[in-house]
């Protein structure tokens, strides 16, 4: 690879890294962390989940055999 091409590749990599950083930062700022979500109130509380999901049954057929 020529010196010019290598320099272009280096600049391209750096730009790519910077852009991907912006994308991640954008995603994180547009949406707050999971910790701030109301969802975790229930989904960290096993007792509440037991109460809420009591009696839930699997939808798998008793006639289903294994695969693969």
């Amino acid at each position, binding site marked *: 690879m020529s010196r010019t091409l290598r320099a272009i590749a280096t600049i391209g990599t750096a730009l790519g890294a910077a852009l991907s950083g912006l994308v991640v930062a954008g995603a994180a700022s547009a949406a707050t962390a*999971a910790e701030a979500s*109301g969802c975790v109130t229930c989904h960290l509380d096993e007792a509440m989940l037991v109460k809420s999901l009591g009696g839930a049954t699997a939808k798998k057929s008793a006639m289903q055999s294994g*695969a693969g």
Partner: protein
Amino acid sequence: MAPLEPQAKVLLSKDFLATTHGALACESCHGGNPASLDKATAHAGFDPVPSISNPRKACGDCHAEIVATAKDSLHGSLSTFPKVLANRANKDRWGQVDEARATHCAACHTSCGGCHVSRPRFAQKGFIQGHVFQKRSDPINQCTACHGSRVGSEFYGERGQGDVHAAKATMDCVACHPAKEMHAAAPRSLPGRYQLGELARCTHCHKELEYGSVRDHAIHLGRVQCQVCHSQTYVNCYGCHVGKDADGTAFFQNRRELETLKIGLNHDAKAPGAGYRYMLVRHVPSYPEMFDFYGKDLFTSFGGVPTWKRASPHNIQRRTWQAATCNNCHGNRALFLASADLLDFEKQANRNVVVPDGKVPKPVKKTQTLAVDTSRVRTGMVVDARWLHENLGKGKVVVVDARDRAAYDKGHIDGAIPLDPLTSGFRTGGDAERPFVLVDHAEVAGILGRAGLAADDHIVVYDRSGLTAIALLAVLEWAGATHVSYLEGGIEGWHAAGFRESTVLSSLGARAFTGTVQPRYVVDSGTLAKLLGKPNVVVLDARAIHRILGETRHEKASRAGAIPGSMNLPLGALLMDNGALKSPAELLWMLRTRGITPDKTVVTTCDTGLAAADAFFLLRYLGFQDVRVHDEAWVNWSRTR
């Protein structure tokens, strides 16, 4: 694998909140209403599987390059299924075929989440580390949760000896099947999965074998698929039955599974890296009426695709019986797929796979002999269906059905009495202080006597898989029965021999079982500890490899692991599917390759004493002189040592 409890499936761990993915709000991937604490409104618009519904949005914002191909990967799209089905289908009825495909075949489809955060949908889902994402898929909770019946069972030794890559190299699935393969796009034009260029191949690691020191590599390389020499027997499936339950839940079900090994001709040498002439072939469960639930005559071109297909069993061993000496393979017609192996409807489909007599390699004139001594095999400890049919009701022959009562009631060998060793009280319960150990001899003799058995009867025991029947035979030997036999192949062998079942309950009058207990057959953990490390003693752990690796544990064991100094040989190495047995010569040779010879004292162990009892009986059948069962097994050992 048992499904997770409903709450465990969706319980987050606090660790997740500190991860990169935990920095995102839940609703950014799953939707729903995080402001509500009411279950129904919180889940309005909620998507439990966003990487399946919309992988570009759920994962592609950050992992664009991966998602671009992974969404079309074999796991993501099952893209080769329509192609294979179309080659068999009645083109005027493709709509019905495709409906069946989408309902049943596509049940195994998965996406990013099923490999990186939770159990796949086919394995009934559920977080495996509280929603913490993992780069490397979990072999137990993810890969073999779907690829379990064949791949998982064979890799971890629930069928056969297991795979050397798991047992000795402790390799997991990703070690051979990395992201490059898993994320590779599989176009719809691909005729089958073996045509995927990124597919794992043995030669990716085992390079330049033609220059190595193994003479047979130089002879066979390029002509014979690696697995032909290095695989053990594997399962073949027959008669996939699809339908829906009374409540509309879809299912598929194999009607028959058969453990064999067959070599076929490679009809498709154009697949990448597959230019060899001979390959292993596995029977797939297709048949012309497979989708009849959706309509008649859907596969009018059934001969368009073979039903014996290229196989890559995940049960590799360096040394195998078919390659133990040249003429175990050369000239062994039974090892090669023949027309007689085909069902009537599949003759056309497999015309290019069958090996004609002229293409079976000729015997080699000068070759080594194996010199396996079978003279000490106790042949009377195993009988076949024909012998039993001829001897039913004669002399002191008594037949015992060791399956559960429901299976017995559906149909059993005429005259057999029901005696399920798992529920008859021979062992303590799982909640006992010392779980699963044999109760005292008087109690065992009482149970046997009330069932109508006498110590000098010729007691023949059968079941479906061999597991419980042989465990009962071990109890009988310990209790002092003098003449016991295992019905090889169990109830399926009975059917295969053409004999009928009865639904009439048989019972014998109670008698005194006056056998003399054989304490030399059982050792406790204290005795076992003293035997460890002694020359001429082998402690044989008959559990699956994932137990030995510590990847799983019995629910009653206090920890995962294995007894130090023990040798792992999964029970599947001794006992085939459906309770069939390999020849004594093959079994003795296989044991010898591991240094387990009849002159040694062998102590068998497992989790609960059941598989250990099976191994005990089978080793005694093979002529071993001093075999003992570690009845307390790992469950008790782990609690006390």
